[in-house]
């Protein structure tokens, strides 16, 4: 084994994660390798100062309100989903009714009616095109099952 192979054992040795056999093997190497001994000492110092850093524990109030806050946000999320679905459905319904009324209205000029129909057809084409593109890329995406 080279020094490089002992690097992984060095971390385990430092963190007390080695089996007795691995520990003995690493200590044997240490005895004959001043370079690894030096590096281990550096890591020991780093570990000591890093372990000494502690983070502020938030006030108890934060933990007491934590679940309540999370619950409310879950509930609000569901509320927003229903609100959005209802909003979309109502907009489509009233939009359709309004356009239907405009087209059937004899007082509205043919120019406006044609413009409105062209606008709707354009929107429909754009929607179908984007949807098809998304679907195509989703089916072809080789990485879709990769856990990110």
């Amino acid at each position: 084994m080279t020094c490089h192979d002992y690097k992984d054992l060095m971390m385990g040795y430092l963190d007390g994660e080695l089996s007795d056999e691995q520990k003995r093997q690493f200590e044997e190497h240490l005895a004959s390798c001043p370079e690894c001994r030096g590096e281990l000492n550096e890591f020991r110092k780093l570990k000591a100062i890093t372990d000494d850093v502690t983070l502020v524990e938030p006030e108890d109030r934060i933990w007491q309100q934590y679940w309540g806050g999370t619950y409310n946000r879950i509930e609000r999320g569901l509320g927003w989903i229903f609100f959005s679905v209802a909003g979309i459905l109502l907009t489509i319904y009233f939009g359709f009714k309004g356009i239907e009324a405009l087209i059937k209205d004899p007082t509205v000029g043919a120019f406006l009616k044609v413009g409105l129909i062209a606008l709707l057809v354009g929107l429909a084409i754009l929607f179908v095109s984007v949807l098809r593109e998304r679907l195509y890329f989703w089916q072809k995406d080789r990485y879709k099952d990769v856990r990110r």
Partner: protein
Amino acid sequence: METFCQDEVTALRRCRRGSRDAFEPIVKRYMKDAYFIALGLVGNREDALDLSQEAFIRAFSNIKQLNPDKKFFPWFYQILKNLCFSHLRKRRTRQDCSLDAADDDNNRQGPVAVDDLFTPDVLAERNEVKKKIWKAIGRLDEKHREVIILRHFRNMSYEQMAQNLFCNKGTVTSRLYYARKRLKELLGKEMGGSTNDVS
């Protein structure tokens, strides 16, 4: 511990059927881990609290994707980690954009780094050395920062880290080695020497 695992399985089963109340013991069990990991990854309290709660919300919404035979925390950890890193990336992009705008006005500023978010007010005890370590942790790249946080701030064993990172113990050891090596370099630069200067 055994009882809790059994309780967790039962609670998760109820969550899958849509029970929000069943999610309470799970949130209460892991909220501290979630908060402190997020704090270690993003560096400030407000964002850590918000992101850890958001991760629980997303976990609940997607609970059906969790394999019933698998543990909750490693799966949850992926959600939390992705949220934290994507939050940092968005923040960096926003800052880059504002810097570009500032450049347009011939008003040049220095580059914005993630470690700017790593404010020392989250440290329980503040002295120069600890502030520098905290800043240096903020300068590590994502993969290295997460192993340092899990090991040093959550005291996880290599086995637990491997479970949470979905990798084997060898990968954990190797990442820890390079993370510590990089941290040593960053601290060396900060202190104008090596970690020998720190005591």
